[in-house]
């Protein structure tokens, strides 16, 4: 069988802990103003979906991690994590 499997990666990118996130602070203040006083902290990030072909999930993970390092996230200031499932 030559056809490789199709996968969908959901990538979550956010600012590293310790990097000031003024967007998160603005959203936090907005939620509190709406009455959600229990809100302690908010950090705003980016959500990316990638569909790709790979023979197995390990290969897909390796490829997506490389994509994150090279383009989807800026490792100088951002963290990333992802979930991969068959698509």
């Amino acid at each position: 069988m030559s056809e490789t499997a199709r996968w969908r990666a959901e990538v979550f990118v956010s600012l590293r802990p310790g990097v000031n996130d003024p967007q998160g602070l603005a959203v936090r203040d907005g939620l509190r103003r709406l009455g959600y006083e229990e809100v302690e902290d908010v950090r705003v990030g980016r959500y990316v979906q990638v569909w790709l072909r790979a023979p197995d999930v390990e290969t897909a993970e390796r490829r997506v991690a490389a994509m994150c390092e090279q383009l989807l996230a800026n490792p100088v200031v951002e963290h990333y994590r992802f979930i991969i499932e068959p698509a």
Partner: protein
Amino acid sequence: MRFGIVTFPGSNGDHDALMAVRLGLGQPAELVWHTETDLSNYDCIVIPGGFSYGDYLRAGAIARFAPVMQAVAREAEAGKPVLGICNGFQILTEAHLLPGALLRNASLEFVCDWVWVRVEQTRTPWTSQLAPGTLLRLPIAHGEGRYYVDEKTLAELERAGQIVFRYVDAKGNATPEANPNGSVANIAGVCNVRGNVVGLMPHPERAFDRLIGGDDGLQILASVLAVGLEVVRGRGGH
């Protein structure tokens, strides 16, 4: 001295830079489209401001993959003077030609204003003709200009003399009030280890004549001409 000014889709400071070099310095300058792969004809390179590729993903993130950027990296490696202004600074950090990253302004507002910057480093071709501590009044216009490096990298930059410009007040003091975007240590511009690649958020090319509000930016652009003179001397005086 021939200036090459790179135009990306979404650049908007390219013509400002062209005018500043031609009218302000009286030097030849050309716009170079982002698909160009050879910059060897130019004596120095300017990556101008704007919103290349709509600032999609992150400011400068997509421009980094333009064909011309390989040529920029090659010329930078060869020691040619490279200046990144505003979006050009963001592109050079994304391309890892300069350290750090530029994040959303701490105020979350786009700032369009005139600021004072202090020259911190004069070993770069873009500041070589300025006295250390010179104050320049320059315009800024950006939403993502908050320079960030972690504390360890900041210490390295200080040690290696890579901080080129700082935001200061009119008296030259780097106060929190003089910092328009929340940059660490009031940093407005940095250089690479070698010093030939400089990036800054303020716009020297928009301050080349008193008619447009100021001409302090000309001092940065004119500094590089000293390098041109050296090149000419190296060629045997012609």
